[in-house]
């Protein structure tokens, strides 16, 4: 018997994309908080922050803001997956002759699509606020690639949360630490302004390497070793989160 992984995934992705199109507030909510942060940091705190460069603060901060956007966006993936499990629709899918992994992949692809839209909205607002880059198409593709990897990594963490949550609130609570991680990184202030242990943590957590890479790309500077550290983190997190999510899923459906 043939499996229809691709076809089934496409059909189920179409389904959850319709969910998003019918409640576009999920995309707007995802974009609103990062935009508010961006406004506040640029027009309230930004003047007092010494980044050690003379680039506009919005340029300095945008990479971190984009990561916060994605970190809050994946919470909806956990939420939607949890609702599928709660209602009977998940069991209906499982009792049908479909490729079983396609149920999860559909949520992952939907998360990618939704987060890309939110990111584009946030970048649009940043451009209005004076964000400028001379990045070429190739560099933009590199930025997009890193953001996609970041979304995939966090989405698989969201799948773990969605599959194992007991309540709706629990399903999205996992995203709070992820949203705060950029604050303890080089996203808003240089790490050398932080006290010793905090600076050490900030320099060795994944967000700093990712933020530094994105910032260098936007500023047309060499990315150095940051990009490899960032990629290693992203691929590593994706593999581990994927393995855990699949293990939980298997246990759930057998």
């Amino acid at each position, binding site marked *: *018997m043939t499996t229809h992984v691709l076809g089934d995934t496409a059909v189920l992705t179409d*389904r959850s994309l319709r969910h998003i199109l*019918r409640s576009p507030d999920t995309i707007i909510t995802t974009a609103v908080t990062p935009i508010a942060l961006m406004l506040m940091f640029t027009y309230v705190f930004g003047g007092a922050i010494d980044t050690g460069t003379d680039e506009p603060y919005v340029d300095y901060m945008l990479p971190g803001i984009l990561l916060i956007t994605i970190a809050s966006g994946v919470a909806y993936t956990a939420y939607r997956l949890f609702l599928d499990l709660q209602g009977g629709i998940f*069991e209906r899918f499982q*009792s*049908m*002759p479909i490729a079983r992994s396609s149920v999860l992949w559909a949520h992952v692809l939907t998360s990618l699509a939704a987060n890309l839209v939110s990111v584009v909205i946030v970048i649009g607002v940043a451009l209005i606020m004076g964000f400028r880059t001379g990045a070429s198409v190739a560099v933009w593709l590199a930025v997009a690639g890193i953001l996609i990897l970041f979304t995939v990594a966090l989405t698989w963490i969201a799948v773990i949360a969605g599959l194992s949550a007991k309540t709706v609130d629990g399903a999205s609570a996992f995203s709070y630490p992820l949203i705060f991680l950029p604050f303890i990184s080089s996203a808003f202030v240089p790490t050398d302004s932080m006290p010793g242990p905090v600076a050490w943590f900030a320099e060795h957590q994944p967000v700093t390497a990712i933020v530094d890479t994105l910032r260098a790309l936007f500023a047309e500077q060499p990315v150095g070793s940051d990009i490899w550290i960032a990629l290693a983190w992203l691929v590593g997190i994706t593999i581990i989160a994927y393995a855990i999510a699949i293990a939980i899923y298997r246990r759930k459906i*057998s």
Partner: protein
Amino acid sequence: MTSQTAIRVRGIEKSFKDQHVLQGVSFDVPAGSIFALLGSNGAGKTTLVRILSTLLKADSGTAAVHGFDVAGQPREVRDAISLTGQFAAVDEVLTGRENLVLVAKLRHLSDPAVIADNLLDRFSLTDAGNRRASTYSGGMRRRLDLAMSLIGTPPIIFLDEPTTGLDPQARIEVWQTIRDLARGGTTVLLTTQYLDEAEQLADRIAILHQGTIIQSGTLTELKQLLPPAEVTYVEKQPSLEDVFLALVGEQTGSDSSTITTVENGTAEDGTVPGRRDPR
């Protein structure tokens, strides 16, 4: 496999932690019949249906559905069955039509749109077809749920408490659908806690109690377990349901307040079961 036995269950056991929910359940469901699994809440009906529809693995025992082992050939089983769970498994955000198209596509059928339109028509949902399922009444939702289960005409259908929570009219509609299905040759295994539902619909009834089938057979066979029928005359009072249905203009075919012969003088409450088969 022989086409005689659609579902064959032998010694199925299942425990959850210290709860021994199923303690060796065995029965056969002949192809094309309606089989009712009767039991009170918590008797293990849903657990059994979940095992038969490959959602749950039994601790021991075997079950074959449409000739395929539920543990060893789950994919083949899923191809032959359709499950309508206890809670209407419809996508509330999608419209009725989209729900049907979704299932048709997942069953890899050609012309999902045509299938959807036909089913909307058959279940009197055409007018509501383009409305989101979240706006449907309980009965409409159940009908949509059933319609989704019929897509691809699986030979075996599991209905877990199909009428729980429905109002009397919706209940009669669902019954009619189930009868139509069986007439078309589909094997129906339904669970219910309503005695009258089993009595109305089922060719065979199995009573699941404390983890085992304590009795099974046709309605006549089950009735013979009790003392032989006496003939008594009772005045048939209309049941509240008769009154309700008469007032809201639903035809049940039941004529009230007539003198009726009751077989088996065990109708303790002195009335004939209110609903008649509206066939």
